[in-house]
């Protein structure tokens, strides 16, 4: 056992010329964002597995007496969500190019688009055709839709807070990265919806 002082150092390199920021997967926060997407994606996958499990336990699906979920409003919502990818990716490009004015107005546009999406989602809920407390089918249908709706709402709130900040402050490199992370999260919310949409609206019709 030794109680000698800490090991001496020999300075052999200098890191002070490194930049103070990065974009994309080089950035630390990008990985944190991915971590939370994996958590939430796993949640979606398991909820979808629960849906399929209950489906296999039932002789007919949806169970006798339950209406099929409506295709009109869900179709409009899905089309709008997919189309929202265009302005979202445009904001992403502007953030990477560090265009302050475009990022500010682009984010404000996304806030408005989020409001439209939430209104469409409300109509979609109204045309599901079954309540959550009617049977297991209704419960798991609402589970999937509520889970995804929380993502729409939180993403909208994040856009709103970012928009307010961006319009009132000088934007630094880290904030452009924040906008980029937010845009990636928007894409995540769009991509997770597509399999859920197929499951909720087309699995009962196709299987």
């Amino acid at each position, binding site marked *: *056992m*030794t*109680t*000698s002082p*800490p*090991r*001496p*150092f*020999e*300075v*052999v*390199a*200098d*890191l*002070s*010329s*490194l*930049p*103070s*920021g*990065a974009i994309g997967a*080089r*950035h*630390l926060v990008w*990985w*944190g964002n991915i*971590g*939370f997407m*994996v*958590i*939430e994606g*796993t*949640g979606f996958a*398991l*909820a979808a597995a*629960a849906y399929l*499990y*209950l489906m296999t*336990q*039932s002789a007919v699906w949806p169970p006798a007496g339950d209406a099929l979920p409506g295709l009109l409003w869900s179709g409009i919502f899905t089309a709008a969500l997919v189309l929202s990818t265009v302005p979202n990716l445009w904001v992403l490009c502007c953030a990477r190019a560090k265009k302050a004015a475009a990022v500010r107005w682009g984010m404000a546009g996304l806030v408005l688009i989020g409001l439209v999406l939430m209104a469409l989602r409300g109509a979609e809920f109204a045309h599901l055709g079954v309540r*959550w*407390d*009617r*049977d*297991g*089918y209704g*419960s798991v249908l*609402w*589970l999937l839709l509520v889970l995804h709706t929380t993502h729409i*709402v939180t993403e909208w709130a994040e856009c709103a*807070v970012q928009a307010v*900040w961006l*319009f*009132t*402050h*000088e*934007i*630094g490199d880290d*904030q452009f990265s*924040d906008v980029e992370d937010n845009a990636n999260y928007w894409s995540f919310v769009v991509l997770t919806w597509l399999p859920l949409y197929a499951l909720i609206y087309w699995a009962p019709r196709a299987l």
Partner: protein
Amino acid sequence: MRPEQTRLDRLSLTWRDPPGLWGFLTTVDHKRIAARYIVTALLLMFLAGMLALDMRWQLSTPENVRMGPQLYNESFSLHGSTMLFLVSVPVMEAMAFWLVPLMLGQRNMAFPRLGAFSYWLYLGGVLTLWISHALDITPDLGWFEYPPLSGPAYAPGHRADIWAQMITFTEVAALAASVNVAATILKMRPPGMTLARMPVFLWAMLVASIMTILSMPAIMLVTSMLIADRLVSTHFFSPAGGGDVLLFQHLFWFFGHPEVYIIFVPATGFVSAIVETFSRRPLFGHSVIVLAILSIGALAFGLWVHHMFAVGLPRLGNNFYTAASMAIALPAGLQIFCWIATIWSGRPWLATPMLWVIGFVTTFVIGGLSGVMTASAALDLQLTDSYFIVAHFHYVLVGGAMFPLFGAFCYWYPKATGRMMSERWGRIAFALIVGGFNLGFFPMHLLGLLGMPRRVYTYPAGMGWERLNQVATLGSVIAVAGGLVFVANALVCYWRGAPSGPDPWGGSTLEWAGEAPAPSWNLAYTPMVDSLTPMWNGAAPLRVADGVAIERREVLITSVTDADPLYRQKSASPSIWPLLSALAVSVMFIASIFTPWAIVVGAVPIGAALTGWFWPQRPRRNRG
């Protein structure tokens, strides 16, 4: 050279916490957060141990009247829930919080405020369960609360809700911690520490974090579904309403089985670190151990149905899960052979941490063998819900995770406190705990084979179970006495232990490079790594890099595979917002036991707190 005092003073100024209570509430220092995680978990381990002792007292004689059935149900439910959700998983994350930045030569975790948030939310879960216990709303359906027993028809009141929501607290905390640990290990390794040069400890913590990220959503989902069944009349688990009770079991064990390995895999990291240092040679078969950990991480997701052999699943399914359960013994066995080979070919030094490793290997092998037995679906049908299972999982969890944890505690104690624990009292504690544990739990195998079911509050005389139960109780008393010696040793040596110096064991990895106790900024410079054992360089000076700022909080970010320096990242300063956010989330969680509207209303203060947390401090826009 040695760092200049002016540099160290500047670092201390940059990385210090505000003084007093405000500093306590706002700190983002990974060591302070980890220490309070560890102290909280140890306190809970003591409480859970007292519950265990009480239950052993009850079972020491037939038809004992110390406890009635309700109190016994509450005792084992509280014991199991506390040990699994509030002790085992959090304490492993806490060890990662404490050690990962030190072992990387970094100044803090990737997301310092997320670490603080994680602890406060975990504390919320602790208080939810134990304040409810004080108010006599103790969960009473075991640590896995199956419906229909926990559903609205059979479990009125709020005992089941408390259990379900305690889980939500701790799992959000664990998920936040895991993202933090994984991002830190992947993006903040020192230059030169490629994936191939990463110590086993870091691999273990990385794999355990990824396993947490992939498994814990299952338990959050299933407990939320249970609360929904109880609160808003959904029918997930009610067969009459088109639901299915086995859905709960599938989702629960999809989390529950990986959880066993989320507890065990970090322990393999402790053991690898201790074996290397105390065998005084680099670990034998580093790549084999890393691959074994990776394959355990993957296989652990294919075993969950072996907890459900008795529920009547198709035979082919049972066969698959029998095979998978036996397969996982292979990588576990490979690891053990590598550790034995390291000890065998090294110059072993039997200090207390190494004793714990030996206690671990022997006890865990017994638990592993009874695991191979219960992996057989046919045999499991006979053994399930008997004391054999109680013996098996205590051998695996206590022997496989708690013994390495105690060894790790003794090993890294000097780094945390600057003092040595008493070797003599350490050996006494070791002998009492390991001896008492085996005396207490080995007879339970026999009790199980003799037909004694688990979770019974008493048994009639004349079953032939009395003597073995008394031996088990005696063993538990001895083990608890050993635990008290262990804690007393740690407490006394905190003030009176011999000064340890920075590297009392001659450790191989970077946490031993700096001062002990580690200062708030950890290392004065950024280390450069060129081997698996950077401290074993023949006592030559450590090669380091300068250039990461000392006048502001800054950390180095490197690439994922090769650890090439990429950029310098600002590191978060102390903040009250993680605590306020955790408080807002806690209020929402508790209120949502009573009304679903709490989720809607409660989202507002949570949103406000998170906005305060992430609101960047930059100059206002000039509109001139």
